[in-house]
């Protein structure tokens, strides 16, 4: 049906050599194709524009891995950015706020978007998975037989439904549902509403009144995943006029490309909590950004391919390091490589979590704020040094330090700390070099970490903010044995 993005991009990049970094011209050519892919997938134009600008920035200057084409590299960068945007930060898939019972949840959206079905599906999920007592109520006084529809669904999924009283208005029904929930000891009250157009002032006022009356814990905007360019208007108006806390995307079992997911996420900034994937009452799933990203771009295999290429590169790098380490060599380039590795592995904490028996330590690191930021600063400092300086840190005297500090936007004292840390680590490497490669492998981490589980002798202040009882500075000194690199990979 649709030409997929990788095919399109292979055309654009046929002429290019496979080496070096992506130039602005390469990236611009590629982004034109990305734009088309997004628009074909029904991503709203303003959203597509913003997204392209961000992805472009990330792609320019990016190095192209040896075993893949520049086109594939761009796809990977775009894909990762798409996953990041769709997923957002700290979004917890499928999570619905049902604290302090009875928790009202308000379902809103356009006509025919799938509110009633989604209401019943969520109620079923909360009842069965969450072991909650749920009450459903239909505030749809407009569509013929809408209330009956919810009542029937309630029977099907075994969830109580507020009895229908003819002639009551939505606010009155919502209040009655809350009273009933208090009396009946329900945990959650699902409020289904009539479909409405976001430009229908009267009906938007009505739903605002309902919201004011029950103060829902969640207001979920139910949107058809097949929605086209109008998605921006729907998202902006519902969020602006009613305020939504999350999105439910329906009909994801269709053959649409699902660009509305990106539009919704980008315009409201709210998480996509759940997706509807069928007409059956259990056809409700958590939202997986990476699946939808592949679908929007019309590809999937490329991403896996690029990841594999990246893995081999890391492998090669790890082997090179191991060789140097065996010789007791450790310059600032090596430190740089290590820091990069750590950053990729999710920082010190991510790494610790993956090492057996170090889970508790991970918590302490959390407290210490010794996170990505510290590592990034250190990387920036090393990157501000010349090649020669990195090979031979002794060159770094006062004036050079000043230059490096200015380049990385830090104080000279931080450069000093970094150099001190490096010196201590290099000393340790020398000792280990004497131990020999085989000894290191056999002794593994424990020989490095000492009795306390941590290496001895390094200066904790080197990393800035050391946690109490944890010599922060030495954590970077924690060597990754080459065989750990594969393990550390965080699969999406």
């Amino acid at each position: 049906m649709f030409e997929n993005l990788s095919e399109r991009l292979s055309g654009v990049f046929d002429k290019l050599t496979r080496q070096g970094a992506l130039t602005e011209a390469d990236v611009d050519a590629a982004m034109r194709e990305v734009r088309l892919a997004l628009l074909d997938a029904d991503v709203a134009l303003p959203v597509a524009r913003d997204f392209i600008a961000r992805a472009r920035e990330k792609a320019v200057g990016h190095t192209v891995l040896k075993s893949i084409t520049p086109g594939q590299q761009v796809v990977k960068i775009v894909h990762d950015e798409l996953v990041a945007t769709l997923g957002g930060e700290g979004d917890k898939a499928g999570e619905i706020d049902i604290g302090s019972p009875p928790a009202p949840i308000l379902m809103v959206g356009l006509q025919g978007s799938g509110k009633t079905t989604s209401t019943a599906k969520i109620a079923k999920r909360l009842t069965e998975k969450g072991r909650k007592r749920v009450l459903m109520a239909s505030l749809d006084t407009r569509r013929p037989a809408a209330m009956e529809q919810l009542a029937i669904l309630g029977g099907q999924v075994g969830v109580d439904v507020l009895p229908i009283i003819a002639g009551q208005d939505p606010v009155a029904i919502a209040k009655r549902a809350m009273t009933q929930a208090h009396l009946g000891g329900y945990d959650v009250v699902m409020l289904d509403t009539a479909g409405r157009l976001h430009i229908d002032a009267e009906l938007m006022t009505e739903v605002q009144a309902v919201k004011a009356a029950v103060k829902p814990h969640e207001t979920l905007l139910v949107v058809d995943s097949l929605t086209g360019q109008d998605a921006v208007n729907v998202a902006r108006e519902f969020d602006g006029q009613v305020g939504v806390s999350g999105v439910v995307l329906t009909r994801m079992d269709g053959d649409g490309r699902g660009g509305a997911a990106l539009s919704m996420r980008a315009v409201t900034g709210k998480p996509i909590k759940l997706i509807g994937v069928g007409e059956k009452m259990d056809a409700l799933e958590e939202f997986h950004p990476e699946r939808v990203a592949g679908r929007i771009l019309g590809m999937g295999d490329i991403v896996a391919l690029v990841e594999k290429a990246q893995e081999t590169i890391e492998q090669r790098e790890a082997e090179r390091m191991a060789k140097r380490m065996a010789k007791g060599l450790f310059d600032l380039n090596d430190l740089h490589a290590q820091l990069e590795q750590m950053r990729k592995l999710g920082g010190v904490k991510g790494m610790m979590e993956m090492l057996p028996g170090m889970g508790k330590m991970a918590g302490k690191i959390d407290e210490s704020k010794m996170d990505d930021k510290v590592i990034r600063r250190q990387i920036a400092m090393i990157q501000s040094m010349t090649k020669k300086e990195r090979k031979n840190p002794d060159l770094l005297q006062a004036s050079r330090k000043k230059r490096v500090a200015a380049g990385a936007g830090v104080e000279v004292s931080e450069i000093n700390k970094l150099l001190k840390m490096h010196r201590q680590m290099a000393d340790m490497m020398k000792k280990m070099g004497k131990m020999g490669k085989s000894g290191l492998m056999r002794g593994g981490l424990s020989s490095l970490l000492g009795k306390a589980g941590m290496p001895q002798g390094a200066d904790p202040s080197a990393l800035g903010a050391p946690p109490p009882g944890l010599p922060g500075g030495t954590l970077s000194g924690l060597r990754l044995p080459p065989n750990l690199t594969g393990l550390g990979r965080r699969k999406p």
Partner: protein
Amino acid sequence: MRFFEKLKERLFKSNARIEQGVDAILVEERVVDDALLEELEDLLVQADFGVNVAQRASAAVAEGRFGKSVPAEEVKRLLAAEVARTLAPVARPLPLYAKRPQVILVVGVNGGGKTTTVGKLASQLKSAGKSVVVAAADTFRAAAVEQLKIWGQRAGVPVIAKTEGADAAGVAYDALREAQERGADVLLIDTAGRLQNRGDLMAELDKILRVLQKLDPTAPHNVLLVLDATVGQNALSQVEIFQKIAKVSGLIMTKLDGTAKGGVLVALAEKFGLPIHAVGVGEAIDDLQPFEAQEFARALTGAKAL
């Protein structure tokens, strides 16, 4: 002519944004150049034309005018003319046949507005003096039969239904026989919503067609695909597959009273050439209007005259 007035008023309201869009990029007069073309194209993309059709339509506007200065109103008019040119051949009212009963099957994806449209059509056909029978062949969705019965009351036409869970094809068969016995002019059949990529549900539609033909080899006489205006490029896939399996004879687009522009109709007209019979512009019984190419084009672009 009341319907027509209403359509104009509603479409103009719903499409105010594209008009504003044209106004925003065209302050009184502008030279036709690549930048203008691109901006026009973007506007059309935002109206769900799809990139290819948007490019073609904006190129048509620029043809022979490159480098010339053109007033804003003229650009709107040219755009409207281009849209109308594509849509005029497909803007055709629902054909009425001498055949009794004329069987009209209404199909589409979930929530598009099939049942509502059946109610509206029943009411209009009845006002036109036809004796109408409606069949509730959506035996799947909860309370679908109830919903249609209420529409039957509103339109003042009988609704033939079995219990929920009954075989949809069976309902259609019985309804046609009953309509024949009653000597009805029109039988409208409402069906369950189904996504076009669901092979099993599409097969059910095929079965409905086949059982109807047992009673009347010429039935159904019309198969109307209901499209929701908010749907984007997926409408192309919907038309393609429904046409293949259910032999769609015409389209109805609903929810044009919202902010969705329904520009995908232009792409559909180019690709499939299926007649577009009517548009839904609200939830009330008389909110179904004949589809009028020039009016639609004018509303879409904000052009004052063609």
